[in-house]
């Protein structure tokens, strides 16, 4: 092919876990981003700390497609252990970049690809002393070579290196050196740039590169969360860690140096959510973050919060289940277990962010909703969204926004009440009662919180009538929730097709790409993105107005589809599952295949 491919490629770095390749790879995508190009890196890492294969896949797309794409154009194969599979994964005509310090094993030679050997270790050993340094700078060397191959702006990379080592300036020089070593070697031994390359554009204005978990943690800061209780678990760990990091920057009392927050690493997930419930019961905004196994352990407490009507914000960063499953892979497979968590008749509010920006916004919204509705709100993120850097709109905070603390009675309110206070009275007819915080008033407003059945005045009762009144009011409250949760997003102003697509969360990138593709082929279909459970009227209408609707989700059992037919009494016949659950983020190709009814190998 003589026509070069510009700004539309996938580069895969194959490294060994724990060898410092991560930072070099991050610089690579950051540099692309700074060249004004949409970029989407994905970290594919093992469930161990050091020594196993790990991959870093970067998609660069002038069209702005941020979903994963099959077909590797360029492979940077640094891991001998996985090199055979890695080489095999290259598309025809692709380019393997490898360490030519040692000769390639003949088995690894393919006639349909173009080998680009760089003696990385050799160069490193020639120019640097300590083995650890050689080890680390080897990564910068291949970065330099990639700059030459792809026609990246070397100064942008140098700048990024300088920024990274701002605190250790001594390291800047050797890193720049290493970069040039790779850069020059490539230039001297190969015709650079390659026919597949990048070129500066201006397509990332107003965007940032951020991980979903960091955005969620920051959202909790902006929402005024003061208590965070958690237990470490991949892939949610960085949510509370980011909260703490930002809190230490933004929440230290300027005079006293004391903390305007408390982070507690609990002994387990049961304790973590117990602490959240205790804190919100007592008037603080509190949250926890976990993943599937933690949600299972929290389910008894979620039932208490639902029934005793205590706000809870829970971030569920989903990973591959069931059980310990695939802890370092992504899925959307906790939908049922989150929506109906706990025994008895329970239902919980779910939010479905699809970008780090939405993680920030929905984290903030979650606190307002939880307090307004006095019930658990679960933010349904996933490993792909939470732990990968995404190009996403810069974060905004409306300065006029004030926290909605919901129906809380102050001492004055209590003084001026003519009626006796009833914690579970439906005063306003919206199913939401009023609450009071301990210590509010010397003689008014005290009540007793319990997980057992109670009457409108929070008095213990075993009366079936009182019980039924109570749980029926919770239904009323649920209907109120429908009105105030984030609305579904329609991707078209008016319906254009009898076929519709319903999707949510991290399937968004790939779905949007698939929709473009269909449009270009004149096969447009309508699409709707779910942002919250309970479902709203828009969603109900969308289903009503389409003959066949594909529900795209990343789990085996079509859990969102189950929720749709169970909650909306939608006709199951017209809801077609379009599933991906191998632990890798779904691709546009897969969606298109699904829509075309092609038998997708893993579909059940």
């Amino acid at each position: 092919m003589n026509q070069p491919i510009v700004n539309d490629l996938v580069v895969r770095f194959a490294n060994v876990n724990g060898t410092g390749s991560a930072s070099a790879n991050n610089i690579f995508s950051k540099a692309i981003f700074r060249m004004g190009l949409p970029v989407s890196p994905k970290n594919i890492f093992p469930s161990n700390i050091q020594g196993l294969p790990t991959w870093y896949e970067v998609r660069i797309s002038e069209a702005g497609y941020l979903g994963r794409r099959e077909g590797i154009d360029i492979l940077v194969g640094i891991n001998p252990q996985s090199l055979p599979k890695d080489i095999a994964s290259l598309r025809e005509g692709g380019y393997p970049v490898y360490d030519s310090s040692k000769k390639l094993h003949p088995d690894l030679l393919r006639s349909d690809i173009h080998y680009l050997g760089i003696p990385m270790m050799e160069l490193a050993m020639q120019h640097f002393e300590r083995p650890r340094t050689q080890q680390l700078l080897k990564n910068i060397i291949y970065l330099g070579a990639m700059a030459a191959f792809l026609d990246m702006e070397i100064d942008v990379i140098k700048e990024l290196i300088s920024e990274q080592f701002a605190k250790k300036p001594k390291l800047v020089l050797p890193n720049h050196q290493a970069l040039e070593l790779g850069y020059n070697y490539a230039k001297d031994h190969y015709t650079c740039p390659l026919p597949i390359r990048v070129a500066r554009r201006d397509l990332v204005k107003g965007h940032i590169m951020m991980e979903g978990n960091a955005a969620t943690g920051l959202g909790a800061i902006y929402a005024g969360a003061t208590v965070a209780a958690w237990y470490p678990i991949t892939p949610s760990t960085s949510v509370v860690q980011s909260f703490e990091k930002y809190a230490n920057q933004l929440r230290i009392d300027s005079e006293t140096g004391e903390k305007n927050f408390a982070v507690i690493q609990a002994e387990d997930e049961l304790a973590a959510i117990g602490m959240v419930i205790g804190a919100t019961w007592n008037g603080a905004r509190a949250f926890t973050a976990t993943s599937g196994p933690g949600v299972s352990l929290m389910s008894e407490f979620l039932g208490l919060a639902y029934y005793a009507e205590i706000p809870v914000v829970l971030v569920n960063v989903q990973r591959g289940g069931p059980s310990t499953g695939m802890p370092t892979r992504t899925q959307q497979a906790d939908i049922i277990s989150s929506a109906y968590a706990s025994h008895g008749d329970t239902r919980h509010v779910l939010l479905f962010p699809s970008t780090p920006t939405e993680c920030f916004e929905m984290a903030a919204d979650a606190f307002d909703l939880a307090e307004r509705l006095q019930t658990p709100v679960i933010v349904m993120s996933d490993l792909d969204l939470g732990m990968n850097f995404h190009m996403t709109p810069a974060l905004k905070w409306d300065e006029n926004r004030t926290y909605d603390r919901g129906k809380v009675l102050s001492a004055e309110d209590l003084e001026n009440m003519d009626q006796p206070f009833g914690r579970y009275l439906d005063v306003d007819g919206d199913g939401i009662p009023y609450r009071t915080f301990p210590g509010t008033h010397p003689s008014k407003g005290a009540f007793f919180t319990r997980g057992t059945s109670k009457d409108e005045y929070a008095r213990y009762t075993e009366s079936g009538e009182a019980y039924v009144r109570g749980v029926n009011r919770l239904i009323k409250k649920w209907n109120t929730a429908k009105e105030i949760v984030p609305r579904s997003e329609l991707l078209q102003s008016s319906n254009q097709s009898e076929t519709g697509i319903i999707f949510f969360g991290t399937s968004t990138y790939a779905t949007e790409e698939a929709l473009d593709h269909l449009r270009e082929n004149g096969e447009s279909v309508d699409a709707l993105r779910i942002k919250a459970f309970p479902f709203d009227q828009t969603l109900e209408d969308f289903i009503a107005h389409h003959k066949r609707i594909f529900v795209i989700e990343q789990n085996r059992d079509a859990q969102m589809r189950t929720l749709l037919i169970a909650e909306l009494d939608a006709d199951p016949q017209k809801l077609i599952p379009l599933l991906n659950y191998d632990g890798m983020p779904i691709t546009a190709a897969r969606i298109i295949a699904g829509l075309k009814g092609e038998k997708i190998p893993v579909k059940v």
Partner: protein
Amino acid sequence: MSYIRPTFRHPALPQNEKGYAKADYEGAISTLCAGCGHDSISGAIVQACYEMSIEPHRIAKLSGIGCSSKTPTYFLSQSHGFNSVHGRMPSITTGANMANRDLLYLGVSGDGDSASIGLGQFGHVIRRNLNMTYIVMNNGCYGLTKGQDSATADVGSISKSGSANILPTIDLVGLALEMGATFVARSFSGDKTQLVPLIKAALSHKGFALIDVISPCVTFNNNKGSTKSYSFVREHISMTSALDFVPEEEEITVEYAEGTSKQISLHDGSSLLLSKLNPDWDPTNRRKAQERLQDSRETGEVLTGLFYIDPESEDLHEILQTTQTPLNQLKQVALCPGQAALDKINAGLK
């Protein structure tokens, strides 16, 4: 039972300094069995809070699940209460305490609630030295589920069903001492003169205060052969030392001083006076306490009283260096950094 009490109080009724009558500290009518030890402990709590002139709304009462955990309904009806789930009171109380460091937290639990399902949370709330009073109403059985042996039942203790407990006991006092609790006491529901000052001391202690109160279950574990029966405890009870609690206001009178071997001042200005009768007993020495406990196990005494107190103890808020202002009272201005800060963050992510 009604929770709406008249703010008006009959002038005739005796009142404490804060102007509350004893009735203001009472709760709904108990639905426990007549004679249940738990009811006496509720009474002691009422008396302690009344005499200490704690404003009812400044105290929060929390519990797990069990007959014992029901008692918060039966005292302090003008205080917010939380009867949570089985074995998880410690985590709920931890969260509540984090939200507002200015209130007093009274946790009530049972031996099943704390030593079985709740053992993990019990250990970790101790480790965090949460500022709370933790009362275990310990009857050696699961009352509410009809009398199965609990983990605090002594080996060989006979339950009403006639079977002898075959597994070793978990001694919450020994456990708390080993795990570093800063206030550890044991008492007996039948001994108010000891229990009331202990509760006062616990409420005054800044940090985690455990009172393991042996509280006979008259329905399922008060029979002959039970080591948690009224008669058995009465026959085997002994004391580390008699103890008086003196609130900060009162100065220590002479006749107090005379009977006293040792005075311990607590962070809130109140103090504990230890009786002369046990002159060499020093409850500020954890190791001595553990040894005394070991002795009592060998002699078969039911040793009660204050085992250990660390008057210098630092609670979780101090350890975490949280602000003096209760976190639940911080306003949006103090909490929300605003767009300016966000712009900086955005800039750093390009």
